[in-house]
């Protein structure tokens, strides 16, 4: 009963009631995932979603595939073990800003470094949703939450900069409110061989409503977001504005003021330094980049692991258990 290629989004939807708050950004991500899957050509039985704990981490229950809703912060390791055990599976980690960057920080950075071919979707709502609204490692400085009634004093992580620092080979950003963009990024993440780290801005309308409104609001979006496309110049504000590099300094320029499109920064996702600069376009004075900031090539961990097994078998022959038990120095008592 192997699944064929004529699956639809619905085929990837499980029979479980979806239990997010009405209006939660998670719905859209789920929908885009289910929508894009038929195009990826992954058989349902080879698809696995692993999550930790958090609102976002309920994701696997809603996917008609294999899945595990595990413990807080450890999905990257579980996924690593799974991928090591069976490199043929398409393994997706779904995590949150708390799950992935707070308790699970160590597991995440080591996954990125090792570069298993796993896709990590980090639903960043800049809050702990499931535990009802404490600030997270991505929350804005000064935010007032249940655990920071006088304002948070925690300088937040910049998730993409952290991922780059941790040797990630694929780093991208998308948002819940832009289905087309998200589907595109999900597809690219899937295609990348190695760990794909995708941060998705996700609105928690109950505990941190509007955290990303600036980027998702139809009116503001054009001027606050930068849609990255490989080989294309960095344009925003409906093409009226562009980004150019003045030495190291990204500079926002108005095209009508005489700047030509040829002077603009052309997006090259294979350039690590530029990826770094893009990840640091993080303030209020610059548009926020969305898309694939970086994609590099490195062997995948599961392959190197399998290669050592294969090479070892080739070199020594498939292990003979009796020989091994006997060891090198045995003697007979008669």
């Amino acid at each position, binding site marked *: 009963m192997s699944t064929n290629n004529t699956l639809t989004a619905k085929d990837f939807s499980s029979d479980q009631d979806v239990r997010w708050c009405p209006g939660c950004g998670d719905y859209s991500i789920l929908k885009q995932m289910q929508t894009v899957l038929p195009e990826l050509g992954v058989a349902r039985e080879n698809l696995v979603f692993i999550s930790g704990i958090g609102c976002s981490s309920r994701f696997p229950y809603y996917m008609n595939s294999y899945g595990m809703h595990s*413990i807080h912060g450890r999905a990257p390791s579980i996924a690593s073990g799974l991928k090591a055990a069976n490199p043929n599976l398409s393994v997706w980690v779904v995590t949150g800003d708390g799950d992935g960057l707070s308790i699970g920080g160590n597991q995440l950075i080591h996954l990125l470094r090792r570069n298993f071919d796993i896709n990590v979707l980090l639903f960043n709502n800049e809050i702990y949703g499931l535990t009802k609204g404490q600030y997270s490692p991505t929350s804005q400085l000064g935010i007032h939450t249940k655990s920071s009634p006088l304002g948070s004093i925690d300088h937040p992580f910049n998730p993409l900069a952290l991922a780059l620092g941790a040797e990630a080979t694929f780093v991208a950003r998308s948002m819940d409110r832009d289905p087309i963009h998200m589907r595109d990024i999900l597809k690219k993440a899937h295609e990348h061989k190695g760990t794909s780290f995708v941060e998705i801005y996700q609105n928690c309308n109950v505990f941190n409503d509007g955290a990303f409104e600036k980027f998702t609001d139809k009116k503001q979006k054009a001027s606050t977001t930068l849609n990255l496309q490989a080989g294309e110049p960095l344009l925003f504000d409906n093409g009226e504005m562009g980004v150019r590099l003045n030495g190291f300094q990204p500079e926002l320029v108005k095209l009508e003021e005489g700047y030509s499109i040829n002077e603009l920064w052309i997006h090259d996702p294979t350039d690590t330094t530029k990826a770094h600069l893009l990840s640091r376009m993080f303030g209020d004075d610059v548009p926020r980049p969305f898309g694939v900031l970086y994609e590099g090539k490195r062997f995948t961990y599961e392959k190197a692991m399998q290669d050592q097994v294969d090479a070892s078998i080739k070199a020594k022959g498939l292990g003979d258990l009796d020989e091994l038990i006997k060891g090198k120095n045995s003697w007979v008592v008669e």
Partner: protein
Amino acid sequence: MAATTELQKVTIHFAGDSGDGIQLAGSQFTNTTALQGNNLSTFPDFPAEIRAPTGTVAGVSGFQIHFGSVEINTPGAEPDVLVAMNAAAFVKNIKNLRIGGTLIIDESGFDKRNLRLAKLDENKNPLDDLDPNDYQVHRIEITKLNREAVDGLTLSNKEKDQSRNLFVLGLVYWLYHREMETTLTFLQQKFRSNETILEANTRALKAGFHFGETIEAAKRYTVSKADLAPGTYRNIVGNEALGLGLIAAGKQSGLDLFFAGYPITPASDILHFLSRHKNFGVKTFQAEDEIAAITAAIGASFGGSLAITATSGPGMALKGEALGLAVMLETPMVIVNVQRGGPSTGLPTKTEQADLFQALYGRNGEAPIPVIAAMSPSDCFDAAIEACKIAVERMTPVILLSDGFLANGAAPWKFPKSASLPTITVHKATGDNYQPYARNENLTRQWAIPGEAGKEHRVGGLEKEDITGNVSYSASNHEKMVKIRAAKVENISDMYAPLELIQGDTTGKVLVVGWGSTYGASKVAVRWAREEGLSVSQLHLRHLFPFDKELGDYLSNFENIVVPELNNGQLVKILKQEFEGNIHGLNKIQGLPFKAKEIFEEIRKHA
């Protein structure tokens, strides 16, 4: 020429600085002795530091071997021979040397500096105070002699001295009529890339051996082959046996072995061993921490591998949360804890049995996990296979307890043929309408592995509905599931071979009930007591949870139960939870194994 005396058994203790190559000398003596057909048991004992400060008592590394033509169950208590390479080694160990025993000394280790470092009066060589009637003392200028032996090689003095251990080994070989063959072969292997060093070590060994002729040793000794049951034997240390058992279990189950671990003494060698045997299809994963290790194993288990993780106490403490997940998932895996002295970092290179409570209870909620323990180095092999068998056949995590003494201790092993190993049957999901939490008669659920079409399902750490495995917050379902998980684990005792006494009658005055590495010392103690005519029997538990069904019956037939443990009393408390009777704990918490005498004396009190 010295006369040769036949001995039944001998205990030799090698001691020197941790840089002196004592462990190498000890293990070479062990291998040679094993190959010469003796029964044996060893106990390496070394400092926590990589190189503890030279010359100090804290820096002494020791290796004790007990070998004989008779049954040997412990590494021996009072050595017959003490080899002390310096004053600190002497100070630390002389009190143990049997009166009448032999003392072999490197004189150059007793200069002022060494005396000072050993916290002795630098103007007074303690060797001068020894009563010649107490010991047979060989004060030898080993360093000097050895330098002469390797003279001419282009080596620094420091490098030359690094072969002293071979010199002394050669001498002991001569004294006990051992062959040099095994060690010579070993040296050739080890130093194949450095001829000068090879030459130095070879010369040193031979020089020591030949030096035997020249010393005024009145006697040489010989120890005949042990009367071992017919079969093929090898020498083995516990961690290697454990690794072998895991590979064997992989083969017996037809599953790929996946091992994830984070290095920690004394468990790391399991990782090292397995990483050398990838041609058995073994995948080893050095994780970033113990949490990653166990969760990677959970992932691999979900993916259909035979998944293992191994650690020691502090690492085990970190795995508690994930163990709970494994309980909920009902997925097969084995968690090995090679126990060491605690609490906290404790005594990392010493042995202890103080993690039993942690194994039984160290996680939140009602999370029953079977716990089994290995009782001798070679038994680590069988215990590993049994742990895997329980895990796979009953779809559960299993905790396997070993300890530092077993991990590094050696003994001859009449190893089995692979054809005679237990089968391990995988409980794969069959049929069309897969229900992840439907169960068979012994409450085991079926294993559906990603990649199998039509069996897609989701699992997780939230309470799950009976049969379907869907998330369920129902009150009655929760109680039901807690009871099912408990009953499922209770049922595992169905799988056990019948519990049998190690020695003695089924009824009597004293029953010694041990677990883990106390096996050998208990065995000797009970034998001695029985030889004295005391009414004593011995039972040894492989299964700490659930207990063997027959356990209660055994206990009820003895007036006193003595429970020796290398902790402050853990099994004894667990037994009291379930059984009545006069249950007495015998506890030693010194980072050292029991001496048979200690158990013997406790038996006497109650017999």
